[in-house]
């Protein structure tokens, strides 16, 4: 097995993820690109897990190289990263949906970071309710 193949695949996937995060405007697509990056890291962890020990054959059996008798730590880290990604997607989508409920948009360019907009939001709600009432009356 040539270890360079999964590593190169992981590097390309990470580059694609960076490209997607920077290019996409839709928050859900940004989350998808983040998933690609996390998977690239997972792939590197698993590949290192299966190649590093074979690469250590000529090395003296030092304590740092064999901390546990059978080092499968890369796979376990990958499992942990998968769990972290699931938590991240859950909270991220909750934020996206809440923002959509407030503003009817999921476009990241239009997120106002610098205004303190309590009043703005409540005023929006008031006008929306008023328009709904007018629509009911007129129909």
């Amino acid at each position, binding site marked *: 097995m040539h270890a360079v193949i999964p590593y190169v695949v992981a590097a390309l996937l990470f580059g694609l993820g960076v490209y997607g995060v*920077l290019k996409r405007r839709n928050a859900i697509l940004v989350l998808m690109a983040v998933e690609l990056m996390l998977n690239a890291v997972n792939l590197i962890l698993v590949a290192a*897990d299966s190649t590093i020990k074979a690469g250590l054959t000529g090395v003296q059996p030092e304590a740092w190289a064999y901390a546990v008798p059978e080092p499968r730590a890369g796979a376990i880290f990958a499992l942990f990263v998968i769990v972290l990604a699931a938590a991240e997607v859950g909270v991220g989508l909750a934020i996206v949906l809440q923002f959509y409920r407030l503003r009817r948009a999921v476009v990241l360019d239009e997120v106002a970071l610098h205004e303190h907009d309590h009043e703005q939001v409540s005023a929006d709600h008031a006008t929306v309710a008023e328009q709904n009432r007018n629509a009911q009356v007129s129909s």
Partner: protein
Amino acid sequence: MTVADALMLALGAIAVGSGALVVTSAHLVRSGFYLVVSLGAIAGLYLVLGAELVAWVQILVYVGAVVVLLLFAVMLTRAPIGPSDDLDRPALPAALIGGGVGLGLTVLLVDAFRWTEYELPPPGTGRRVGEQIFGAWVLPFEVLSILLLAALVGAIVLSRPDIGARPDPNAGAEPAPEPGPIGESPEVAARLERIAARQAAAQARVRAQHAAEQATEVAEPAQEQTREDALKDQARNVVFQAREGAPKLGRTPDMPLEPAPDPRVIESTSTEVSRGRPELPRGTRKGPPRELPSGPTRDDEGT
């Protein structure tokens, strides 16, 4: 070039190709499905590399849960079906940075590993991974479970507006006055005016017609009131009653109505004729008149 190499090349090509489609597709939903393909190919890579449990967890958690969650979010945010043209920023800076990162990492890793042959370790079984997790890595495992719980609670708090909301800074102040027609946007105001004008015109037309009929009646008093005329009067009664009983603007149904005079008696219509007749069909009356305090009038009708 062994079988493992060929498999990894094929799966890697699938993963990278569908990953590229994820970040370039103009369809939101297709991006999600290309993500499924990419993650499945990566799970195949895990299988080739001997991490069996990670591969199945990848398929279960990523393909089965995360992508479904993403597609649910696509659905809930009313994403358009079909291509949308406003998904992307200008691609050049992103392509520069992303390509730089990807190519830099590729060069680094290729330089580190060259074309060296490694022997694959025996495939890890779930038993060994379990012993590792609950032996050497039990503390991170427990911390991770707490983190999952925190993420769960955080997602619930975020998506429920009634808990965890910051107090409104101007909660103590009086509520904003109800925006009147003056404060409306010009389109809404114009629409309301048009509706009011149309209603006024319709009322004026009906009144004028009625007045003209009455004038002809006065002009020809000798004309006998036929059964047809009585029916017309009755129909007019129905129309006017429905109009009077219809819900008024600014009044909710459970608000007590002011005790109107008998709503079925209308000036200058021949109520005497309709009084004596059987009850009118109910289908002509709508809504709130059912709840009018008009019991006495019903009783009157009965007698």
